[in-house]
């Protein structure tokens, strides 16, 4: 019997992998949790699409300040060293390759690193892309955090996405509740798995062929 990582465990795992001095943009959901687990001995600078570079956590004691919010419209704080950009500069930071890393949620990721995370494709859904497409083409590294399968057990790592794409060949690495998978030129490479999970079991929960790194980490 294998365990599954909690959302917090996944966030903690990603946080541990972010190098000192990185400029990072965190998406909605599990990625937001990462900010809580950044190691104290590293300076990781958080960027938000509405122009804050150097964003601190929200202060629950302080009254809501509408001019200090993140992309999810949640309250945030400024930290020593933070700066403010307008929207064109903020998106130049993304598209221009100045953001070292973005971590995003996903509906599906394909074997080639195609990402689907903006639209369910449901006919009744109102199309709303926000900054997702700008972020994925521009950030130097794109990590995805997600559950390995849907609640119904359907794999979210697939050969070809059937949800509408956010970007083509943009994802570099996937952190799931079961494994860490790198997207390489040679295909999907599993670099870590949870305790008690066999490679065959992981493959059965994944709708694209996986390869196993020789020395894997156990989560």
């Amino acid at each position: 019997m294998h365990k599954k990582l909690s959302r917090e465990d996944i966030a903690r795992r990603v946080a541990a992998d972010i190098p000192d001095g990185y400029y990072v943009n965190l998406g909605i959901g599990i990625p937001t949790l990462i900010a809580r687990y950044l190691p104290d001995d590293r300076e990781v600078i958080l960027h938000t699409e509405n122009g804050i570079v150097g964003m601190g956590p929200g202060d629950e004691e302080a009254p809501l300040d509408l001019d200090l919010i993140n992309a999810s419209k949640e309250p945030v704080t400024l930290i020593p060293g933070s700066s403010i950009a307008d929207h064109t500069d903020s998106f130049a930071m993304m598209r221009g390759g100045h953001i070292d890393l973005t971590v995003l949620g996903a509906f599906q990721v394909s074997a080639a690193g195609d990402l689907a995370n903006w639209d369910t494709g449901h006919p009744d859904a109102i199309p709303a892309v926000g900054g997702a497409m700008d972020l994925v083409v521009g950030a130097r590294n794109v990590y995805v955090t997600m559950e390995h399968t849907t609640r119904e057990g359907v794999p979210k790592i697939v050969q070809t996405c059937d949800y509408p794409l956010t970007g083509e060949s943009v994802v570099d690495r996937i952190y799931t509740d079961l494994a860490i998978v790198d997207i390489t030129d040679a295909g999907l490479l599993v670099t870590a798995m949870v305790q008690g999970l066999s490679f065959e079991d992981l493959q059965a929960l994944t709708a694209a062929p996986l390869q196993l790194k020789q020395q894997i980490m156990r989560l």
Partner: protein
Amino acid sequence: MLDKTVADFETAVADVHDGATILIGGFGASAVPTELVCALLEQGARELTIVNNNAGNGPVGLSQLIAAGRVKKMICSFARSSNKLRPNAVAFAEAYRGGRIELECVPQGTMAERMRAAGSGLGPFYTPTSYGTALAEGKETRIEDGVGYVLEHPLKGDFAFIKAQYGDRWGNLTYRYAGRNFGPVMAMAAKTTIAQVDRICPLGQLQPEHIVTSGIFVKRIIEVQRDQHA
């Protein structure tokens, strides 16, 4: 003497014509020029095209304009309610599902850059954003050094409504924290930019190097009196 100060909101928006394209600043509830939008509601112009990051932000302002059937088309990056627990784009959703309003969904950075192109005298430009996605369908594309690009066109406004913190009678503006968002780019992208500010300072009081939007981009400036706050 150059004095762009306007005394009341009614005068500020008086010449907005039917069919106008209006760029409205703000991101979520941050730096939304609500008083200008409410004045437009009173003014009566119809068949409007509105460019705003969102398609309404609570019941007041843009949502009222949409509910009143005055908006023909929304150009925005995120037309869904950003808060599922407290839906804030309800009027838009109803109008959209009822087929009473058009939507052009544009990636947020592309929207900003299209306005920057308009304000900077540029023509169409290539961006990698949206390449290979549904939002690039029907658009011209090209591949350069192995990267796919999509051709996008400048986005110009007849009017821009923006909110800043301080200003002066020449229209110079400073912004408060992340309330800057779309203000500077919308100011440059419209024929007539109208800025509402918390305070109009005497000319020369704002530090030149702290001014974010030069008055050259601003046609009218109006101070929001406390009792006018919507």
